């Protein structure tokens, strides 16, 4: 219903530029309609931990001098909480790219095992 309505009401001005993928203002390279490896999903989540951390650190750094010790302790606790997240991810081997036991593996890849869970 809503889809039909907007089809009828909305003006259609199509163009090659409008249909191209948005890449933060960069020159477009290829289509977004490709398949990604599902493992990127975990990487994206881990990235989020640090992303949020930095976003919060910036305003904190601006007012740090005014608040002083309290701000320092508060941010320390916040960073500890985030670190726990990182430790959990690390221990659960979500940071390892190669996860399987490879029959022909040598060197440091020989010690890799399956996900412990």
């Amino acid at each position, binding site marked *: 219903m809503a889809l039909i309505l907007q089809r009828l009401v909305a003006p259609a001005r199509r163009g090659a530029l409008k249909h191209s993928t948005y890449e933060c203002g960069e020159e477009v390279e290829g289509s977004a309609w490709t398949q990604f490896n599902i493992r990127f999903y975990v990487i994206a989540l881990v990235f989020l931990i640090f992303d949020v951390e930095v976003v919060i650190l910036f305003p904190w750094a601006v007012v740090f001098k005014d608040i002083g010790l*309290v701000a320092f302790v508060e941010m320390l606790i916040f960073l500890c*909480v985030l670190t*726990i*997240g990182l*430790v*959990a991810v690390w*221990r*659960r081997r979500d940071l390892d790219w190669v996860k399987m036991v490879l029959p022909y593996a040598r060197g440091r890849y020989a010690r890799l095992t399956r996900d*412990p*869970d």
Partner: protein
Amino acid sequence: MSNIQSLTYFLPELILTSSAMVIILTDVFFRGRNRNRLIWLLSLVALGIAAIFLLLQTTPPDAIFYGALAVDPYSRFFKWIFLLATVVIYVVSPYSRELDNNPRHEYYLFMLLVVFGLFLMASALDLIIVYLSIEIVSIGSFVLAGFLKQERLSNESSLKYVIYGALSSGVMLYGLSLLFGIAGSTNVFDIQAALSGVPDKAHLTLAVALLLVLTGFGYKIAMVPFHFWTPDVYQGAPTTITAYLSVAPKAAGFALALRILGITFGSSPDMNLGEWLPVEGLPFGTLIAIFSAATMTVGNIIAIQQSSVKRLLAYSSIAHAGYMLMAAAILNAQAVSAIMFYLAVYLFMNLGAFLVAIFIHNRYGYDEIEEWKGLGFQAPAVAVAMGIFLFSLTGLPPTAGFVGKVYLFSVLIEAQQFWWLAVLGVLNSVVSLYYYMRILKAMFLDSEPTGERISGHPALSGTILLLMIPVLLFGVYWSPLMNLVRSSLEFFSPGM
């Protein structure tokens, strides 16, 4: 109150979050065979400590973190409901066979985080906290609903839950942003003050904002027409989680909705005053009454044709949200106390009914009504308990459900408004009798005694029988519970 001072009032929540972190670390560093048991025990201890701090918290109503959260008897009452529901689910979770093939430690962790979110929901006084707490609860519930990774239904339920959750919280955010646009503040008391002085022209905006905010709240309490996720999620999720979702987040949704709507759209910022009137010109009562009528009618009528007991109970939980919304159309002190009383009673009877469903599921692995045939002969005690839960859900005396419904109806009768809604509520109760009795008939009448006995784990059967006691007790001697509700009817308001 400033942040550091606030921490002393925030101890139960702090215990929950810090123990969640301890559990994450235990989870990754302890690799022994008893890991599930250990984490189960740790979480129960955390809940126990949180309960002790909650018990010691007897300060007068106050707002902490610069007015973002309320610490008052009203929120404490709901926190007890959440703790009780969580502990019951924790106790029975190790004996649910559905969960056997999955690592239970993460399940316990997510439940702790959900409890934290529920605590925030019960005490939110700021639109940011409203949104944040709903999201904390939702994201935890998404994971829990899809916990049975090998089962298609569970995956489906999780996906549907995520999509509906994202949509409704988006719509709710739009409503909240409208409110912020009108008032220029995210604090509910500031918004209330701003709304009382709105010129008449803005009332259309206000009504739209109310409707959009109701979408988010309605999603949490499974109000028609935002209920479409309920049957699928309830059917696909592990039965323990279904039981939890049908009780705790629903209670939290009501706690949040009553407080936020009551203050924001009320003509006075003080919820402690007995009489409550909406901002002039806003059709608050009529709107809620229409939603209530739709919710109970749709819930009851669709429940009739369900063959899966979990789906049937899902529609019945929609219908119960409708009964409670009936009183919310008035929203005076009596109405709020009636809803709180009903939620407390609903906790026992609905958890009880779902625990019996776990009992059956452990035995047969399905939840079709067929499997219930002959339960009355195979496990008489559990079947009788189920009968009592069903009577209570229908609202027949001498059970607690009857008393709860009487209070809900008396709100409408004494306010002398919405007669049609009360009549519709009574008619709906009659309809609900039919499908509840179908389960009862299957248990006692549809098969011959075969002499076969089935017995669940004593912890499961014991919890079922324990839950039966309050349902019967509050049906004949409910004044202690009502007194507790009345003494909990104290809200924080800035004038105090």
